[in-house]
């Protein structure tokens, strides 16, 4: 269970997140929508601990995440797939992936190998390129790697920021298939996405953010909610 209440955060003097509340349970995909610059990325960064929360509380299964370092937040079960994928340039595909194993402490090397092999089975292209530098991959493959890197951990909350950005439609479909797999493993997913139609196909519920606040919350299945959403984010 993820519970965010009264969350605020700042960049210096600018007040970006201005009181956000979100509740979500295992296996739920929550879409976070909004126009450019409203604070969607900042919300995810605040949850991940990259930006300090100036007020409010974030708890995951009862454990308080607010004020923890990104590393502690990771160990608490949060996986982060940030915008731009953040693949480490000097690291091979395999090395990038192996860092994802650190989320779960004290794993046996057999268990680790199984997790990595599982990824290479699922993503053949990553397996074939495991000894290549991560940044030599195509954009879609890098996105897959960024998501696989989180999958080899055992995240109970996954934050995903604009995974479809700059990718061809066919690849976007693959990326959203991965989101579904993460959901089916029981993770809570916060999905920030400009591609609202794709996102609504996996999301259960969604929130619309404006100037750091949630101005509308809706059900992904509900036609009126969808229409309201499109009105709100129409440029």
């Amino acid at each position: 269970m993820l519970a965010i209440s009264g969350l605020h955060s700042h960049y210096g003097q600018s007040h970006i997140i201005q009181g956000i509340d979100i509740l979500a349970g295992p296996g739920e995909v929550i879409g976070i929508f909004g126009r450019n610059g409203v604070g969607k990325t900042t919300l995810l960064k605040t949850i991940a601990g990259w930006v300090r929360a100036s007020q409010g509380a974030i708890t995951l299964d009862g454990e308080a995440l607010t004020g923890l370092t990104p590393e502690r937040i990771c160990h608490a079960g949060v996986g982060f797939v940030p915008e731009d994928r953040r693949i480490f340039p000097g690291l091979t595909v395999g090395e990038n992936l192996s860092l994802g194993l650190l989320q779960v402490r004290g794993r046996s090397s057999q268990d680790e190998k199984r997790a990595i092999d599982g990824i290479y089975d699922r993503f053949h292209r990553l397996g074939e390129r495991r000894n290549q530098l991560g940044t030599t991959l195509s954009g879609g493959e890098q996105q897959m790697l960024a998501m696989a890197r989180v999958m080899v951990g055992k995240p109970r909350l996954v934050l995903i920021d604009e995974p479809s950005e700059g990718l061809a439609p066919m690849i976007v479909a693959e990326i959203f298939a991965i989101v579904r797999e993460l959901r089916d493993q029981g993770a809570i997913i916060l999905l920030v996405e400009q591609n609202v139609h794709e996102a609504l196909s996996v999301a259960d519920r969604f929130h619309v953010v404006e100037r750091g606040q949630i101005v509308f919350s809706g059900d992904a299945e509900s036609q009126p909610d969808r229409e309201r959403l499109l009105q709100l984010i129409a440029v």
Partner: protein
Amino acid sequence: MTPVDYLQFVLAPQVVNGLALGIAVVLVALGLTIIFGMLDVINMSHGEFYAIGAYAALALGAAGVGFWFLLILVPVLMVPLGMVAERLLIRPVFDTKDRHVTTLLVTFGLGLIVEDVLKIIFGANTQRPPTPIPGATEILGIILPNYRIFLILVGVAIVLGVAYVVYKTRLGAMVRAAAFDRNMAASLGVPVSLVYAGTFAFGVSLAGLAGVLLAPIYSVFPTMGRDFILLAFTVVIVGGMGSIWGAVVAGLLLTQVQALASLIISPVWTDPIVFGTMVAFLVFRPQGLFGRLGHA
């Protein structure tokens, strides 16, 4: 003197001595470049950590600890020293906007203090531990001091060992990841603060090890770090700040240039040539020969 004689008795020994000096410089530069590549910190006290290693070897050696054991003991003792220095001096200013300047000044100050403390404890005189491996060996008609041969072999082993850890192990991947993108690394569970402290301590430990290894050749005195560190900085700049292979290549090349220039031109020309190379690199190729640790 025939050309063969010249080759055998003048040129070859000079090249081998240059090689031993080159390995020595690489050992000192290695820690420096790793600390820079990882932490973005220019450790001005690196030369003094080198001196601490040498004095530790001297003092412990005088107390009866054998050289072989010192080779392990001193680097191990340097680790907590590096950890404490990182904790007290680097970490508090690490996140400030002008980290480069602040850490440079702080470590410079630390270096001055260490120099004086060494002077107070051990006196200003130059001391020289006995050569651990006496004698010389003739290879292809060239007579080489055994200890320099040993230094070259050990130096190569250390460089290869460090490169293996940095480039081929998961620990190394964590270090490289944290060097490039601290937030992302942390969000994957890399203990970034520990990695930083550990890297600093590792660099310091390497400087201490260099001190143990080089004391029998270059002697021990409180300011011994200064001359050496200048050359090591040059090597780090020419090789590419933060590049392990860059430090190796630049260290070996520059010391050969130095050795040959002093033989062929004149010893007074070695410094202008070496430091001129550094200036030329800073002006024309500031990124150095190789890329930075953790970067593609």
